């Protein structure tokens, strides 16, 4: 009972069983490590290895459906590890009676490039990101904005701009969601949905990195 079409080469089909065995082995190694290890933090890291075994299982299927299933698997994995590490931190804080900030120290920059060439580099990054669009473009343009924020901070921050950016980011995220809804509910307008989703996620990721700038400035106020 083989469902694979003939165009797929037999080597690729033959890789499935070894991949599943590797996934099981990775999971077992992780579980063995957890059973031996006593330090809580190490146990948490070893649990992540079991999660990687899960990703191997999904990836072994090897179709483009499997590719789209890896992303939610990865997100679930990250969400769980973030939640558990937060619980671990809050437990340790409660035990020791001390509190720790998420970003413990305010950052100190001492780079010459921040004084001399910030605007030029930021414009190049943002233009290139806008050209790429989508998630990758968002990351690149966001790096440009972050660079600009960092450099502008060296000379004094204009306040009130970045809160607005955070609001625009939220609205762009709604655009992204609307784009997905259009893809699902009205498949005949797929081009509109695709464009909404691509540019929504572009603007959102750009300004998300801008929000890191907001957090950074608040750290500076504390100093």
């Amino acid at each position: 009972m083989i469902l694979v079409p003939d165009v797929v080469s037999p080597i690729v089909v033959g890789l499935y069983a070894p991949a599943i065995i590797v996934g099981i082995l990775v999971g077992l190694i992780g579980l063995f490590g957890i059973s031996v290890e006593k330090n809580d933090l190490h146990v948490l890291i070893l649990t992540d290895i079991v999660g990687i075994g899960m990703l191997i299982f999904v990836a072994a299927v090897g179709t483009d459906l499997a590719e789209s299933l890896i992303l939610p698997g990865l997100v679930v994995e990250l969400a769980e590890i973030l939640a558990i590490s937060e619980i671990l931190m809050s437990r340790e804080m409660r035990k020791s009676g001390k509190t720790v900030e998420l970003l413990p120290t305010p950052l100190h920059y001492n780079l010459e490039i921040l004084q001399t060439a910030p605007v030029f580099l930021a414009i190049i990054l943002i233009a290139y990101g806008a050209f790429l669009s989508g998630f990758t473009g968002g990351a690149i343009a966001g790096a440009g904005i972050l660079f600009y924020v960092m450099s502008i901070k060296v000379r004094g921050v204009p306040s009130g701009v970045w809160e607005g950016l955070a609001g625009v980011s939220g609205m762009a995220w709604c655009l992204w969601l609307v784009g997905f809804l259009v893809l699902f509910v009205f498949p005949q307008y797929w081009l509109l949905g695709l464009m909404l989703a691509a540019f929504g996620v572009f603007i959102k990721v750009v300004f998300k990195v801008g929000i890191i700038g907001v957090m950074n400035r608040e750290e500076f106020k504390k100093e």
Partner: protein
Amino acid sequence: MDITILGSQIIGIIPLGDIVFYFTQFNLFMFATALAFTAIVAISKTETQVEAEFGKLGDRAVTVAKKEFKIRRFLAIICGLATAGAMITGDLFDFTLFVCLTGIVNIGIVGAVRQVDVLDAAYQYGLIAMMASLPLFGGAALILAATGTLSLLEINSLTYTTPMMILGSILLFLGVAGETGVAPFFATKAEMFRTPGSPFLLIIHLSSLLILVRLIEILLMINKPF
């Protein structure tokens, strides 16, 4: 619509691209139960709890501030909605994602109590939930590889069962057991249900029960023992 699932006729489907929700009498009942309980959680005022006094006829009212339970009540509502979604989904991977959402939200509900012992229980539950994601997603991926589809309606119309599908079902069962099946034990270990103002946390029990029943339905659909 002339599809029969485990002896009951399909009442209707909600087509959203390739994610199809479907209703039969069986899962429509469970969906309505989950939604009704979620609505009760959302509108009930549990801040004041009346306890009978021992040896007397008087009552004693215990009141807690609303703020204290805001986050936990929000998480309980999300938990109920995720359970309701898992009841009617017609996509196997969608089901595993709903189960994972329930698991993460349960970790949040248990972990919101600021005591060392409770946080210990939440931490161990989180580890088990994370380890269980391997058999959960792995089982779904094995079934995808063995049948070529994730749609429960398609799997239901298959006439054969291969050993790979049985292995996938066993892994799926292990995964759901670890992800939400053990949640009531950890919540009870932390004595959460007796704290004043939080009876709505019983949604943990309800979700784990409903998801296990739904999982058994899915396993019967995959393996067709009858």
